[in-house]
């Protein structure tokens, strides 16, 4: 009994000491003054030095909170209970949040630096006229492959994936829109197709791909490619960049028939408390030198035209990260197809996974 009480007191004391240390740390980190801005972003998706710089310039104290999925983020915003001033959803989530009335229309009077964004990335179907969102990073879906493990195959076309010599060599990301969309693109259809005939055709074509598939997996794709465990993968450009920085042999290509163009975007959600601070932060992030430094840190493609001049020319000239006009014409952004259609995509994808040999 005595031992139990003693143990309990010891634990409580330890916790109290740690809390005091923590309060001191948090205090020394924060700026004086009650002006705070809460940014809700993906983890490691901003250069921490930029946050420090912003705090120095404005005197606003930034609280940086993180989420791991669009859906989780939306759940938190929808429920309220915490005051997020800014968040960074993907394009389909911008559309969903707009429909649920979770976003605040942006006042461009307060964001003069919007002029630095490439017009090509503005006014897209998921947010006409950019009423609610500003592109933060963008990228494509394509094929990352390792020529040293292959016998000279190239991937100008999606159809090259079906090459019989690639037996058990390819890994796919575990995502219905991506895989079915890839098959639709290979047939020359739109990756937003809602035509059941086209979808059936795409699903049937996928079945013939199964001998080449080694695995359908999530985040592990990057590791497998880095360690030369897989030679070919269907993957987003961001992850491909990670692979290439680690394994020099790997290269990335967006096939000619076209592919998906994805975005993560800055929005101001309904939970905003410090709207002026939010505009200041957005405007700050749109500065060419800030956007360039951020792109350099995160390693994704920036939509900021002026920032391109400040980045490593080699990177900017790299078709894999910044495809030229001609290649861009074949890229499509995912549209929200509605729940029923999404169900159809998921069913077809499941059917494909179950039939894999």
């Amino acid at each position, binding site marked *: *009994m005595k031992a139990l009480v003693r143990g309990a007191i010891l634990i409580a004391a330890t*916790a109290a000491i740690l809390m005091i240390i923590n309060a001191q*740390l948090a205090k020394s980190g924060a700026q004086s003054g009650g002006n705070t801005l*809460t940014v809700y972003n*993906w983890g490691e998706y901003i250069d921490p030095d930029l946050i420090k710089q912003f705090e120095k310039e404005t005197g606003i104290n930034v609280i940086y909170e993180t989420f791991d999925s669009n859906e989780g983020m939306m759940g938190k915003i929808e429920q309220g209970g915490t005051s997020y001033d800014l968040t960074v959803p993907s394009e389909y989530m911008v559309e969903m949040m707009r429909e649920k009335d979770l976003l605040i229309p942006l006042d461009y009077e307060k964001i003069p630096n919007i002029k630095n964004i490439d017009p090509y990335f503005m006014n897209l179907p998921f947010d006409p006229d950019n009423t609610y969102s500003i592109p933060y990073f963008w990228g494509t879906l394509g094929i990352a492959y390792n020529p040293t493990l292959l016998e000279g195959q190239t991937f100008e076309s999606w159809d090259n994936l079906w090459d019989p010599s690639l037996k058990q060599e390819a890994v796919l990301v575990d995502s219905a829109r991506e895989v079915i969309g890839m098959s639709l693109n290979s047939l020359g259809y739109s990756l937003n197709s809602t035509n059941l005939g086209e979808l059936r055709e795409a699903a049937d074509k996928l079945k013939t791909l199964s001998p080449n598939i080694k695995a359908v997996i999530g985040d592990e794709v990057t590791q497998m490619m880095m360690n030369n465990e897989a030679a070919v993968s269907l993957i987003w450009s961001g992850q491909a960049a*990670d692979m290439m920085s680690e394994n020099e042999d790997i290269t990335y290509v967006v096939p000619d028939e076209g592919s998906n163009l994805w975005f993560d975007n800055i929005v101001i959600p309904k939970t905003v408390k410090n709207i002026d601070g939010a505009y200041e932060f957005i405007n700050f992030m749109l500065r060419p030198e800030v956007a360039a430094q951020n792109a350099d840190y995160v390693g994704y493609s920036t939509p900021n035209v002026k920032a391109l001049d400040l980045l490593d020319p080699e990177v900017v000239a790299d078709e894999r990260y910044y495809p030229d006009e001609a290649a861009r014409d074949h890229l499509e952004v995912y549209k929200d197809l509605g729940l029923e259609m999404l169900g159809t995509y998921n069913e077809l994808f499941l059917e494909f996974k179950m039939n894999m040999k």
Partner: protein
Amino acid sequence: MERNGKLPKIYLTAVFLVLYAPIFYLIFYSFNSGGTMSHFESFTWEHYAAVFEDKRLIVIVLNTVVVALLSALISTAIGVMGAITIHYMKNKAMRNAMLSMNSILMVSPDVIIGASFLILFTLVGIKLGFASVLLSHIAFSIPIVVIMVLPKLQEMSPTLIDAALDLGATRKEIMSRVILPFIKPGIFAGFFLALTYSLDDFAVTFFVTGNGFSTLSVEIYSMARTGVTLTINALSGLIFVITAGLILGYYFISNRPKTPAAGVKR
């Protein structure tokens, strides 16, 4: 066992190797200057320096530890009381109902528990942050403690209490001198299990963090977009060393030779 005394040792070593290999793999790459976990370039301390430079990360780690300690402590107290109550219930139907309710909490998915806590806290008006995380961790740890303590109570012979009563023990003394000492191993097991549950829980915690308060698991899971950094490896290495140090320290303290001068025996 005498004749093949080597075999169990070899087996045990193999099991420990399998268990510890991933941890050492993590720690090994925390010294890698390359920046990822695929091939080792050269030795560096930079990731450890990065841990100490990153004030935000240190605050998050301390948050995590504080929440784990307090939630384990409080849920152990409540859980032990609950287990004793359930065990000595006269009404059998009631007892079974209680046990089933406890089991339901054990098996329900974390995501659902987390989401319902979020709804509850926002309805009641509890601000998301330290309090909400602590409360939810206490809540999901209680059933674990109950499950750990109940078998010990069932093991205890009822004659033990009868004997204590015959010897003139009061109800309070029975509790403190008979029941609690007997179930102590269960209490400790429950406490440490609650501690580990709290330390690595992501699904529930994600929903109830907010207003600048975050825990380590939420932070690490959120790195899904760009990959986990080696700073986290370095942090894992530090946590491992500190934990090992605490366990060794405890071992030496509890095994130290007892000198008669160490205090009056009671």
